């Protein structure tokens, strides 16, 4: 029984590589060596025949005395062969084409959680990251068991060992925290319902300023921007557990502020009344205007108004008409506290009329103009205030309406809560508790990136750092020959100061592009044999123009994450 193997995006073989394999003489020698007719012992069917041993044996084979006819001389044979097959899914769900451990037999372990049911789960990882799987989020049965696998990558060692591609936008990623999440049931990946995503709070290893959030496209191996919030950037920690209530409170508070603003406007309006005609000595009722003589020296305030001053009787004085229906022997203008009055009298009686001075002629025109201008200015102010007040009143009314709706929703919710069964109440309390634990976990973390997803995969807080300038050809030559008898496959430069790793030979940059910044770095080389070699650099001088460059070799079986961590001065303890 044969199994089929599915390979995604295998490296392409170039025409030049195929041409290197072209060797007609080899085939011709085999043809000449083979007796004719071709024997029944199908020695040439053996693939090993075409290897070194087989070719070396050609001469010997030619000496063999073999008989029979080749059953395969009819070249139209074997047309109907159907391979027996079995469905073989060799890869675990967490294995993706673009995530392959760099060192054979060395990988970063997952934290594994065997969970039961689809009623909601909250998981806290060893680094404090929290995963909230809401009830019904997974496409599994209510009672189905499943396995959740998660691993975080707090340093360069862990990302390298796991084989996570760390290049983006022409640079190498400096990571502020990374997490890989997978879930499976019976060897099959479990889907997450897009309308009910899982929520993750990823613990960060450094402040998030300057970092972006990305998700790795498992299929293409490229990083794509992904929405997330960072607790060290805003008040993301303050997660409300009652959105309705919080919204209503906010609206009430807004309305209070609106009310206060309306009051201020009203106060402004009342403190800025329209100008009165009296203040400008303008006449109001021409029927009540009369002229009297007065001594300008005795009333200098009237003299200041000019010669054209008359007097207008104040309204609501019933004696006004009676006074003008008879003759008086004298009148006397009096002033008290800025108010004027005229006393009319004769031998028998006297009457007093309250009056105010009014202008006439040119003075009246000038005063009227001043009054109109002042009035218009105030009216304009009033209009602005009134418009603002109207806006505020509308906003207030709208908020009142929203508050009423929220209260009604809450009331309905409460009614629904009241008619829940005990089992439902228990379940709701359980889910509420999960959310609470997740929220607490976020609050307890010094800083975290919070996101929700309906896809499993790798999520990363990162920023791309530019690659160093490649070395000159001489240094590259020395590097290529730094391990005698070995061919270099891939080169990694771990920059300890920039906290980033640069990859050469595995992505878009080749071995000829290797370079380092003048920083403390570790040069790690993967050899064709599968072994590793490294060199710790205190700066660029340790490698550049160094014809006697020597690397420390390490056998693959002796290499592990602890060794890499010690080289990179990283202190993660791996279970």
């Amino acid at each position: 029984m044969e199994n089929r193997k599915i390979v995604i995006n295998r490296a392409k073989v170039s025409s030049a590589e195929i041409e290197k394999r072209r060797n007609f003489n080899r085939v011709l020698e085999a043809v000449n060596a083979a007796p004719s007719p071709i024997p029944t012992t199908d020695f040439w069917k053996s693939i090993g025949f075409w290897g070194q041993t087989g070719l070396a044996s050609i001469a010997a084979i030619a000496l063999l005395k073999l008989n029979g006819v080749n059953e395969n001389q009819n070249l139209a044979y074997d047309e109907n062969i159907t391979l027996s097959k079995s469905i073989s899914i060799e890869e675990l769900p967490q294995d993706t084409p673009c995530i392959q451990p760099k060192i054979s037999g060395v990988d970063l372990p997952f934290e594994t959680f065997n969970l039961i049911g689809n009623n909601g789960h909250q998981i806290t990882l060893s680094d404090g990251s929290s995963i909230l799987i809401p009830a019904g989020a997974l496409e599994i049965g209510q009672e189905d068991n499943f396995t959740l696998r998660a691993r975080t990558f707090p340093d360069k060692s862990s990302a390298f060992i796991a084989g996570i591609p760390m290049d983006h936008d022409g640079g190498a990623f400096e990571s502020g925290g990374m997490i890989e999440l997978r879930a499976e049931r019976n060897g099959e990946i479990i889907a997450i319902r897009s309308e009910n995503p899982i929520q993750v709070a990823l613990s960060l290893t450094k402040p998030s300023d300057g970092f972006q959030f990305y998700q790795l496209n498992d299929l293409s191996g490229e990083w794509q921007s992904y929405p997330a919030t960072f607790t060290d950037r805003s008040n993301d920690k303050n997660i409300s557990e009652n959105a309705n209530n919080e919204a209503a409170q906010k609206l009430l508070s807004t309305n209070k502020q609106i009310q206060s603003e309306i009051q201020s406007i009203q106060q402004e309006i009342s403190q800025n009344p329209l100008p009165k005609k009296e203040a400008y000595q303008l006449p109001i009722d021409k029927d009540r205007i009369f002229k009297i003589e007065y001594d300008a020296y005795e009333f200098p305030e009237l003299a200041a108004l000019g010669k054209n001053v008359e007097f207008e009787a104040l309204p609501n004085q019933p004696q006004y008409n009676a006074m003008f229906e008879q003759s008086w022997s004298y009148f006397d203008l009096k002033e008290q506290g800025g108010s004027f009055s005229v006393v009319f009298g004769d031998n028998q009686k006297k009457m007093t009329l309250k009056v105010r001075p009014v202008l006439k002629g040119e003075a009246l025109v000038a005063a009227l103009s001043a009054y109109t201008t002042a009035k218009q200015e105030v009216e304009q102010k009033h209009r602005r205030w009134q418009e603002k007040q109207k806006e505020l009143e509308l906003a207030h009314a709208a908020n009142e309406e929203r508050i009423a709706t929220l209260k009604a929703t809450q009331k309905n919710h409460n009614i629904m809560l009241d008619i829940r069964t005990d089992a439902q109440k228990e379940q709701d309390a359980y889910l509420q508790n999960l959310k609470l634990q997740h929220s607490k976990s976020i609050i307890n973390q010094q800083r975290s990136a919070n996101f929700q997803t309906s896809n499993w995969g790798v999520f990363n807080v990162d920023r791309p750092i530019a690659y160093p300038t490649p070395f000159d050809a001489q240094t590259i030559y020395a590097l290529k020959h730094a391990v005698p008898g070995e061919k270099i496959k891939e080169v990694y430069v771990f920059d300890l100061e920039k906290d980033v790793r640069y990859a050469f030979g595995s992505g878009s940059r080749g071995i000829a592009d290797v370079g380092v910044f003048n920083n403390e770095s570790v040069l790690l080389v993967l050899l064709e044999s599968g072994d590793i070699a490294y060199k710790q650099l205190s700066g660029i001088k340790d490698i550049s123009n160094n014809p006697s460059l020597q690397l420390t070799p390490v056998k693959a079986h002796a290499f592990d994450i602890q060794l890499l961590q010690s080289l990179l001065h990283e202190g993660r303890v791996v279970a």
Partner: protein
Amino acid sequence: MSSVNPTYHHTPDRLKTELEWIERAKGDPRHFAPLYEKYHEQIFRYIYQRMDDPELADDVTSQVFFKAIKNIQRFEFRGVPFGSWLYRIAKSELNQAFRDRKAKRTINIDMQHVAVFMEVFEQEENQINLKKLKTALVALGEEDVQLIEMRFFEDRPYKEIAEIIGITENNAKVKTFRALEKLKKIFFKK
């Protein structure tokens, strides 16, 4: 697609030249050299596309040419290019290698092909659907897989597929369509 030799189908002049090479090779195996030079890359690619080990692919390729030279006397031109004859030997040798468990049957897919399938199936391009596609390809019959491979992964024209398999062009179209339908059915099977 890089694995398809654009000179598979020839102009009458080139065909004539090729027939002359074949006639000379019938008289002396050494004259097979230009045919070897011409077809080596596409036969290697055809084999390596279906295997996971380049060294084994190299060995099987050598076997194909070994057998072609040994049997060149039997070749008769009947309007089908010499290349299709070589492909039929290659197919046979591959099956022999799989039967002998010397090589593992491999289906190599590029992500661009996955994208095409997802578009045809009107499905999102994600890890779950990729897994489903892989499962469907594993479950599909060998003949159907070969049709899918040649048409969709290697971008071969139906005429060439027909000549390699030894059926009519029209039949190749029908069979390929049916293979795609089967793949789709398995893909959507719960």
